């Protein structure tokens, strides 16, 4: 296709005619005579590139769909055989003559331990991010950032072993102190008369908090770094202290980003398997006393029961996995939506 009349020349008085249907708009030679992109070959490469990237995206979607389909397919027969209400039943005996199993306990403790983790991790992570971005000298901040990221490199079973051997046995003092001074909050009351052995939702929450700290911290750092430099310097120029500057300019702008980072950390905590399995002692009764031992999460119940599960048992565990899949998907989706809306607005 040859070039059409040059558009934009000082003497052109009409716009170029539209190309016939089915053809791309004609290539317009730039004013200065350079040839620009070659046509013909570029068109081909473009199509291949587009096809490949589309295929990659479709492939990922197919994997997600296949996972979901597998979960539903394996879970449905077990759910059909269940004689109890899956959502409200606390006990888990799918391989009995009358299968009775439900995720009430598992769901409750999953949400409980994750909430504890987020409540503990977010202030610390935001503090770390602010320190690194605004308050620390340059060299210190780079080193600190690197160290915090290192927390994410520790395998989860190592966290589990550490939590089981070091953290939980040493929480007795803290638990007793919390019971004495904050027992009125009911949540922190410790009722049994024996020495606390702390394989409790609180211990699991602490381990999870350490595990999700690097995620929230690095995402928050990104968010804080994007705060317009002019606003920060304007606040400082007007005589604000560091803290006032952060409170007035950084936090309002970064609020949505930090929220979405926290939600992503929550999603990670919800799905954490091995560390929680090792730190949490098993118990199926719901309780609000987070310092008392015992609990079971959706992920840990799968690990603990898989080795001995029969056919209905395996299906029941897959149903628990499906439950976790849906919850984590929802949390991640909400997080991304908040982040996306903030970018647009």
């Amino acid at each position, binding site marked *: 296709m040859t070039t059409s009349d040059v558009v934009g020349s000082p003497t052109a008085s009409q716009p170029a005619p539209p190309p016939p249907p089915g053809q791309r708009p004609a290539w317009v030679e730039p004013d200065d005579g350079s040839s620009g992109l070659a046509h013909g070959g570029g068109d081909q490469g473009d199509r291949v590139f587009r096809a490949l990237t589309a295929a990659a995206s479709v492939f990922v979607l197919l994997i997600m769909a296949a996972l979901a389909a597998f979960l539903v397919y394996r879970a449905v027969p077990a759910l059909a055989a269940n004689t109890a209400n899956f959502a409200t039943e606390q006990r888990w005996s799918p391989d009995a003559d009358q299968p009775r199993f439900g995720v009430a306990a598992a769901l409750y403790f999953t949400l409980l331990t994750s909430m504890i983790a987020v409540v503990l991790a977010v202030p610390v992570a935001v503090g770390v991010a602010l320190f690194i971005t605004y308050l620390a000298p340059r060299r210190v901040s780079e080193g600190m950032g690197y160290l915090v990221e290192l927390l994410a490199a520790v395998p989860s079973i190592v966290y589990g072993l550490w939590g089981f051997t070091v953290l939980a046995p040493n929480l007795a003092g803290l638990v007793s102190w919390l019971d004495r001074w904050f027992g009125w909050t009911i949540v922190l009351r410790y009722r049994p008369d024996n020495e606390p*052995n702390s394989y409790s939702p609180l211990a699991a929450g602490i381990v999870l908090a350490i595990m999700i700290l690097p995620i929230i911290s690095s995402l928050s750092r990104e968010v804080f770094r994007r705060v317009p430099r002019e606003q920060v310097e304007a606040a400082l120029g007007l005589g604000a202290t560091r803290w006032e500057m952060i409170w007035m300019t950084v936090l309002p702008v970064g609020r949505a980003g930090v929220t979405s980072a926290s939600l992503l950390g929550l999603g990670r905590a919800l799905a954490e398997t091995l560390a929680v399995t090792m730190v949490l002692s098993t118990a199926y009764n719901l309780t609000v006393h987070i310092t008392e031992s015992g609990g079971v999460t959706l992920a840990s119940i799968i690990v603990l*029961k898989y*080795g*001995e*599960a029969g056919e209905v048992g395996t299906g029941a565990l897959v149903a628990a996995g499906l439950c976790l899949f849906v919850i984590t998907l929802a949390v991640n989706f909400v997080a991304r939506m908040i982040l996306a809306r903030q970018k647009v607005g």
Partner: protein
Amino acid sequence: MLAALSSIFLVAGCGTDDPAASGGGAAGAANCASGTFTVAGNSSMKKGIAAWIEAYQQRCTDVAVNFDGQGSGYGRTQFVQKHVPMASSLASLTGDQKVQAQQRCAPGAAVDLPMAIIPITLSYNLPGVDRLILTPSLIARIFDGKIKRWNDPQLVAVNPGVALPDKSITPVFFSADAGTSENLTRFLVKQAPADWPHKPSQSWPVSIGIGAAISTTIVQAVKNTDGALGYVDYPDAVDNKLSLAALDTGKGPVMISSESVAKVLTASTTSQDGQDITLDLAYGLHEAGAYPAIMAVYEITCTRGLPAAQARFVKSFLTLTSSDEGQRLLADARYIPLPPDLHNRVTTAVAQLAAG
């Protein structure tokens, strides 16, 4: 393709007599298999099977054997779904799974072959206390949370002359579903039903104390918690030098030994259907010198119907494990070998397995 593979092995000499074979004694693995094979089953059998595999691989150079110790139930499921030729399990095939296994092994039959006994210890952590005697009803009450301190009068009464400290008792139990929990709960139901009002189950029914997820952490919990009492498999307990309590079922305190376990097996009912041997363990036994808190480990396989290479492997491996040498390897690894009666039955049954 499997047929081609099988025919290759058949041609290569499956079933030819090895002139060096000397019967059921030491050189039990005369007809070696070749290839890579996987056995799946209970993790409590890991050390025993590792000892067997090492001996087997020493005499059979062209074979690799792996053990996938994710659980008895996992092993049985893998066996029924034809992923492994042999499973190790703390419970024999029952119910629907037995029917499926029979279909899997057609034209042969699915068989359970007892190979080892694992006693369940009551391991405690009390520095300075060398001897401890526990009765089944006291064990039940401790794990159920009714007895909370070591110097409780009920414990002191059973332990004359022992200075029990004023410490709280921390029970340690298995968080995960396990055959050990199932066997111990059966024992408690038979011996102390009034104190243990729970049904036998693989998942420990009480959540008092510390629940540990894997065997390493169970041992650690007992070792590191002052005043802990946990039920630990005998091989793990001995390897980690835990203090073991003596069991008193009413006829005097008994420690774990081949003799105290053998007495229980003599009193247990052995059912044999063809080559399928299952035990109804006498958990409720009250006999002097008997320790009834034990588990039997079965190797589950097909009598016939496995592909030739797998059948050759199963037969040669089980010939080793059931031989005197194999049982001696078990004892070295701290398991309890089969008593003579049961041993004879099992070796006869193994000899009747198809060799390929």
